[in-house]
């Protein structure tokens, strides 16, 4: 759903001037440096995803049967050996969260990477060849894909092929490319109207050259904003699928499945599901906040589908 928030002025020399539709006030000044909290959380998550095993104090999969259901250190009976407690098999919750970051990050980066590639290519091509029937067909498909809930695609792929990392990545990418395409197409169309594109055509540049060298570089800002905003969404979807048993299968620790495994211990071990859930919350929150900040800095008019 695109909300029209600006009137495009039709005088050619004023083409880029956008008048506010009705005194819609965005934040007056945008902070120059990224807000500290999201930056720190994202950095931690990325470091944990890369160096997981080296950083984790214990093995994420080896059980310690003597210390099952050990509570976090700030609760009576907690010990410093396991600062965030252990689960029903005696595995360290902290180590599992650190190593589990890799699954969330890999899925988000892989799925959104593929989706961005396809989505940007389609957005540029349909803007460049806007009169071709193929463009119309592609845009209809994009509009059709956006409302389909990813969870259902993920569940059905997991049912047919069994749960796996490629299954999660595929189901996310199948829907996300349409969101990239929708988010970027408006800018792509605007750039096609620019004089330098017309000049490049006059000079005889080939169509692929214009698309790659003249149109694409102007879309990078929007792409970065979209990528960050969709990263939070992708992590949330991956966690939900893992929670439903349609994510990355065991023994790899994924945050969503950690939450689901704690469901059987709601009374005896509340930390088993609450703590990994809080990790998901913090990372998604960080990506959302970072995305908002980037949007205000780079592309204030973007509306995410």
């Amino acid at each position, binding site marked *: 759903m695109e909300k029209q928030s600006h009137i495009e002025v039709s005088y050619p020399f004023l083409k880029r001037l956008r008048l506010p539709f*009705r005194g819609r006030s965005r934040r007056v000044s945008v902070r120059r440096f990224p807000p500290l909290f999201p930056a720190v959380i994202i950095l931690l998550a990325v470091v944990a995803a890369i160096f997981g095993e080296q950083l984790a104090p214990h093995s994420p999969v080896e059980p310690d049967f003597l210390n099952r259901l050990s509570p976090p250190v700030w609760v009576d009976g907690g010990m410093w050996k396991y600062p965030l407690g252990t689960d029903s098999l005696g595995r360290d919750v902290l180590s599992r969260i650190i190593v589990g970051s890799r699954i969330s990050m890999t899925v988000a980066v892989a799925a959104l990477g593929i989706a961005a590639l396809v989505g940007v290519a389609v957005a540029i091509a349909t803007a460049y060849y806007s009169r071709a029937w193929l463009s119309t067909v592609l845009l209809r498909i994009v509009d059709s894909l956006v*409302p389909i809930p990813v969870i259902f695609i993920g569940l059905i792929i997991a049912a047919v*092929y069994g749960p796996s990392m490629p299954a999660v990545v595929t189901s996310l990418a199948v829907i996300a490319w349409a969101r990239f395409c929708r988010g970027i197409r408006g800018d792509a169309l605007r750039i096609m109207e620019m004089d330098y594109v017309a000049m490049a055509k006059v000079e005889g540049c080939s169509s692929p050259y214009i698309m790659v060298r003249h149109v694409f570089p102007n879309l990078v800002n929007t792409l970065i904003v979209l990528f960050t905003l969709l990263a939070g969404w992708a992590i949330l979807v991956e966690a*939900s699928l893992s929670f*439903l*048993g349609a994510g990355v299968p065991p023994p790899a620790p994924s945050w969503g499945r950690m939450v689901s495994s704690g469901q059987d211990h*709601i009374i005896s071990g509340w930390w088993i*599901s609450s703590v990994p859930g809080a990790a998901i919350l913090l990372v*998604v*929150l960080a990506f959302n906040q970072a995305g908002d900040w980037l949007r205000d800095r780079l592309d204030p008019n973007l509306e995410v589908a």
Partner: protein
Amino acid sequence: MPKTNSLTTVIIPRLLQGALTLLIFVTVVFVLMRMIGGDPALAFAAPDATAAEIEQLRASMGLDEPIYVQYGIYLRDMITGSFGTSVKVGRAVSDLIWEHTANSLKLAVTAVLFSVVIAIPLGVLAASNRFTGVDSSIRAIAVFAMAAPSFWLSIVLIQIVAVGWGLLPVAGMKGPASYILPGFVLASLLIASIVRLLRSGMLDVLNSEYVKLARLKGVPERQIIWKHALRNAIIPVLGFSSVQIATFISGSVVIEIVFAWPGLGALTYSALTTRDFALIQGTITAAVFFTIVVNLLADIFYSYLDPRIRVS
């Protein structure tokens, strides 16, 4: 603005778009379901089916025919809602879907009520106290609610409210009290977006000339906020939120499982864990169908509320 006919500019294009979405989804499901390792008839049949029963299923799925005939048979079945028989439950898939959809619908209506009752006062409160502690704490809650995974929120609320304080039932659908927790969790995402939108909409209106005029005339502040500002700010918010309601259908999958709610989401999940392919195909197709219908209705409602959309 030229006078526009809402039937041709709003309803028909959106109907066609919705039909196309459904066609694409159903086709994807068809392709996936034919890729099940081995014989689709075996996958759809009961484990103890006789050779004759499997043969009958094979004929009804058209598996001996060329692929386009199979696709035709499949499309006809999807359009008429004949999703076959659930082999694990032993009943028609469409009957199961209707029963469970009714329960999901009750939950969704509860969630809509919750979002309206909770979000509107919060949004108004944030806007009328802007840049104060009240405003920033309401905004902080909204930001957290947007990022909180609903399965986590459900479990934490069960731990605190149901187990810790013993106030509400832990799970199940027994009596009005059992609606509160799942309804609230389902509503939380919508609450967050309504609060944010209503706050910014109210701030726009509170800066407008007619509010200034009302203040100059000496209209009491309470009346300015609840009458002048809210009535004007709420319209786009309602339109946008109605579109968001479509997400209740996918959002409830996870929530119904945590709260053991006998709805469509829980049915989908149990079909998945028992690898009941006829039921999986049926429930997921139905869920996407309902999503598209809600989207369509909301879209029409939205364009009726906000005529600017009709033009673009």
